[in-house]
């Protein structure tokens, strides 16, 4: 091999190692440290070889029962927001894909325009409104908020996917006497399943991890896992690193696994949403 080829390979290998380290070291760090006893967590320099222990997970279970309720709340909220957002986006995506009207174009423009409004701005009026409606600290608030902040992106992604289904398919069904609802349920939903998965991936990752709205609108009963972790960070008696690592690991691993498995859909959704929007 020529020396410059070897050099180029070396540089590329080095670049890949740097990229891998940058992406994975922070994650690996807390996952590995969650199995370390305190003396290993506080060891300087950090210990690679240590005897793994579940003491932090036991501590999490014993002292932060809240966290597990939080995980359950996160699950409920994520499932609710995902179903709502995917259904609403698919219906709207279908309409935008199949019908042409200036009013429709206007409302599509409105969809994108609305994405420019920062979430924190609307918490100002929503906070008292939610209190008046007695919805404070419920799953419903978070479900509706999370779904709303993703229906505009979801609609754009669904339109891109539904555009790929030939119009003749639904026209033929229409002539055979199918109603719009039937066409949507029997044809569009199954044929655009890929797009629906792509939208679901976004909403799931967002709803599972979201902090701002959970922080504003939940206090005890509907508190999500990220909020409980944030309380651990700010705990008055000082940070218990080990327990904090255990909680972060439990919160992180399911969604990390999910993102890795749904990688293809995530990439498809991101590109459809950003470039076609």
């Amino acid at each position: 091999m020529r020396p410059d080829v070897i050099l180029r390979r070396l540089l590329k290998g080095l670049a890949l190692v740097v990229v891998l380290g940058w992406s994975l070291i922070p994650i690996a760090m807390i996952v590995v440290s969650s199995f370390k006893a305190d003396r290993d967590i506080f060891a300087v320099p950090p210990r690679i070889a240590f005897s793994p222990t579940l003491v932090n997970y036991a501590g999490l279970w014993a002292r932060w029962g809240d966290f597990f309720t939080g995980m359950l709340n996160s699950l409920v909220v994520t499932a609710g927001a995902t179903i709502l957002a995917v259904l609403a986006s698919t219906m709207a995506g279908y309409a935008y894909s199949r019908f042409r009207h200036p009013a429709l174009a206007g409302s599509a423009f409105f969809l994108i325009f609305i994405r420019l409004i920062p979430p924190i701005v609307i918490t100002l009026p929503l906070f008292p409104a939610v209190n008046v409606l007695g919805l404070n600290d419920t799953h419903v608030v978070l479900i509706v908020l999370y779904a709303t902040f993703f229906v505009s992106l979801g609609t754009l992604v669904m339109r891109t996917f539904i555009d790929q289904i030939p119009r003749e398919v639904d026209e033929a069904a229409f002539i055979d006497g199918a109603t719009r609802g039937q066409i949507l349920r029997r044809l569009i939903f199954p044929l655009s399943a890929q797009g629906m998965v792509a939208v679901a991936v976004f909403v799931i990752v967002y709803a599972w991890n979201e902090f701002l709205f959970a922080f504003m609108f939940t206090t005890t009963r509907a508190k999500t896992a990220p909020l409980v972790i944030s309380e651990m960070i700010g705990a008055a008696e000082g940070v218990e690193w080990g327990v904090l690592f255990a909680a972060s690991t439990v919160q992180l691993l399911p969604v990390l696994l999910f993102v890795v498995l749904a990688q293809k859909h995530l990439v498809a959704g991101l590109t459809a949403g950003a470039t076609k929007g």
Partner: protein
Amino acid sequence: MIAPVQALIVAIIFVPALFVFWLSLTESSFGQRTTFVGLANYATVLGDPYFWRALRNTVVVVLIVVHVELLLGLAMALLFASGVPARPFMLAAVLAPYAVSEVSAVVMWRYLFDVDIGFASQALKALGLPPLEWAIDPTHGLILVALLSIWLHLPFTFVILYAARLAVPGELYEAAQVDGASPWRRFRSVTLPLLMPAMLIAMLFRYIFAFRLFSEVWLMTGGGPARQTEVLAVYLYLEAFRYNAFGDAAATGWLLVLASLLLALWYLRRLYREMFAAHAS
């Protein structure tokens, strides 16, 4: 069929946003009658040195974060496009931070940069560099916030640019090579112009989203010490919920909306034309 989507958006985002505008023109706090004060809240906010401090912090962090992300994202997209071993694994690794919540990311980076035990702090020390005193020094605090934001959002920028790079037809590079173009020349005359639209889109989206920066700062420094690391969203939150100045907070909110609109003006105009051209036919 667009009713559910539009209903959600109008009820949850549009109407409240308009209401914020009304709030920004009034003086009110919880449970008290509101009085109309015109633009007085805007005057208060614009006369508040903490607002300017927050604005400056936001702009500096956003500029650094978005541009570093674009550069790194572009470099990574080109690296991946040139062929990498174990591609599915490498892609999964690069996308991993996308799955991490802001809260967990703060845990990771606080631990990495813990002055006493942090891996990164020790690495800096081994290199003879001073550690990041992020809890004490506002500049260091913002550097850590910027690092964390870049880490969290790089996957997004990378994916957009990588997809755009894969869409460039290979024949263009072959043709350039036949014409004897150097690698740098190929980059400048083929890659860069063809990736430009995707770069602009990624940059725009990241500008708009980075501008909302809240959780990272709130959980990392809480805006402190002495309110010196506040960003606009944190300033807004504190005005509303700690200092009970809803009017000022609402005014800040509308300034945030206006800034986002201004950033996106070019994009909106292009989109508006495209959409009406496509839909009117």
